[in-house]
């Protein structure tokens, strides 16, 4: 087929696809600027930033209660950070371990991967039953945290495994041959070179944990995380303040992505090289 005829078709298809992806988010963003008297639907009665002010507690108290998100937002962020650190460290260590072929490595591989395959509701429920049996209190920083790690660790692991797959071992051997210990070699050579992968693993872990719902539902105990709190408000009545919050949290996510992209750009620029050396072989 001629590329000339194909191009506009592909363009339209691409535009439709992007609209499909971002449509819900755009609707949400538009509705967040609804006036004080309007509901969570079209038409927009009046354009205003009322619901943003409502969200931040800058409006006089009225009939509609504020979103109780302050504490749960803090909890979710803390939980996501804890999960990110633990999962990424575990992911890097495990992937490093997998560089040397060992007995039963296949089984261990699937055991790790299981954490992201098993349905979240089942794992959550299972954890709830287990803690009941053992008489352990459920909490977001305990039981839920464990499940978040079980869930995000395989992602971090897979990212790092892919990175190590393309890693040229001779660079580490060069460091060893210069008298540098294995620990220092990891710190001074391996880590700087796999850093872009570590960033990706962190991003995965953070975003997956931040909006995790099903596993948290049964295991977070009395204090709820952000997704649970928002879900809880749906059962009463929906106001556009949820949309306003959605916009803000999306902006937050984009900021994270931007930081990631900038860090990545720097890391890639400083480690470009690798390709050049392989070509020289």
């Amino acid at each position, binding site marked *: 087929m001629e590329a000339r005829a194909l191009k506009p078709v592909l363009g339209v298809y691409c535009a439709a696809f992007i609209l499909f992806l971002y449509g819900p988010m755009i609707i949400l963003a538009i509705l967040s600027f609804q006036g004080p008297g309007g509901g969570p639907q079209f038409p927009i009665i009046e354009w205003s930033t009322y619901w943003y002010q409502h969200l931040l507690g800058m409006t006089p108290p009225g009939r509609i209660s504020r979103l109780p998100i302050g504490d749960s937002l803090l909890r979710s962020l803390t939980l996501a950070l804890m999960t990110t650190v633990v999962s990424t460290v575990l992911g890097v260590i495990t992937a490093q371990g997998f560089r040397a072929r060992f007995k039963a490595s296949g089984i261990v591989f699937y055991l790790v991967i299981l954490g992201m395959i098993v349905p979240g509701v089942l794992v959550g429920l299972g954890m709830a039953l287990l803690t009941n049996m053992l008489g352990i209190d459920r909490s977001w920083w305990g039981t839920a945290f464990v499940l978040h790690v079980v869930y995000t660790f395989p992602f971090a692991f897979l990212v790092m495994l892919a990175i190590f797959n393309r890693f*040229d071992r*001779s*660079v580490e*051997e*060069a*460091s*060893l*041959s*210069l*008298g*540098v*210990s*294995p620990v*220092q*070699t990891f710190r*001074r*050579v391996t880590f*700087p*070179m796999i850093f872009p992968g570590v960033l990706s693993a962190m991003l995965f872990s953070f975003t997956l944990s931040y909006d995790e719902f099903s596993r948290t539902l049964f295991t977070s105990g009395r204090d709820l995380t952000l997704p649970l709190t928002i879900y809880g408000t749906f059962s009463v009545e929906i106001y556009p303040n949820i949309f306003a919050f959605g916009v803000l949290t999306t902006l937050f996510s984009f900021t994270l992505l931007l930081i990631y992209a900038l860090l990545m750009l720097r890391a890639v620029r*400083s*480690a*470009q*090289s*690798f390709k*050049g*050396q*392989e070509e*020289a*072989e």
Partner: protein
Amino acid sequence: MLSLSSVTKRYGDVTALDRLSVNVPDDSYVSLLGASGSGKTTLLRVIAGFEEPDGGKVIYDGHRLDGVAPHRRGIGFVFQNFALFPHLSVADNVAFGLRYREEEPVTDPSELKARVADAIRLVGLEGLEARKVTAISGGQRQRVALARTLVTEPRFVLLDEPLGALDANLRERMCDELRAIRERLKVTFLHVTGSETEALLMGDVVAVLSAGSIAQVGPASSLFALPKSADVARHLNAYNVLSGRVVKGGFEGAGARFALPGKQAASDGAPIEVALRFDRISVRPAGATAADPAGEAAIRARFIASEFTGASVLSFFRLEDGTLIQVVAHLSGPAPQAFTKDELYELSFNPQDVIPFIERAA
């Protein structure tokens, strides 16, 4: 002195090193010649400690090296692909070992700077200190790799086809420089290569590695003049190897028959291989002269093709039994003949130039 005795290394069913023994004297340039797959890289990796041998001993100055962690062996390694640290500058690559090594790291910044500067001067990279190692040429990377290793002052340096990634021009220059640098620092270089010219040019001593063990060790000139086995002769890429049988103290096979130099102890019918240098053969049209000059032997062969290599012409002939024969004609001599493809020619040589290998074939 580094000595290996009966070192064996297997990968599954493949034996990469087969009871290999060799001594490498101090303050010498030893080149190790081997075809790809002969186990030469495995040998270096065993010495460096990246692989542990399945059997045998690696001893350096009376101490066992096998079992010692690679970073505690004090042996430098220059990699074929250079293996520079891509995230560091030229100067930081060179400083790496001094700065981070386990034993006696150099912490004084001025001393570090001075020693790095010395190493960079040694390999002639002044002015490139701040460059990324990705922003320099192949030859310069090779020098960084060398400086990075030499600055830590190992007494023993392993070089794994260090010139393999360079173009021919640069390779020759680096050869001279490697020799000069080694002589100045009085360290031992063990240089592994698949190129016979490089091995002969570089090494005070040349060792030929074949099928996982050392086939022959000796000074370059004597090794070249008198290979001990057909295998070594093949590695030198300067000998045709013919196989046949001993008949009445002479050689018979490949459509030829000639007396062998010296007395042959082998009995009639024993298998034998002989080596004949590319440049000891002369070619004339078949049947042109019936009479052989006194003592000359001749084989009939069909001409296949010629290669012009600059200073000489390399011609390929095929014997009736399929053996390929190469003939070198140096252009400094009389103008080379032009041969016709698929024509029969007579290849004549002096049987005294033939090197027989009886034990090997038996």
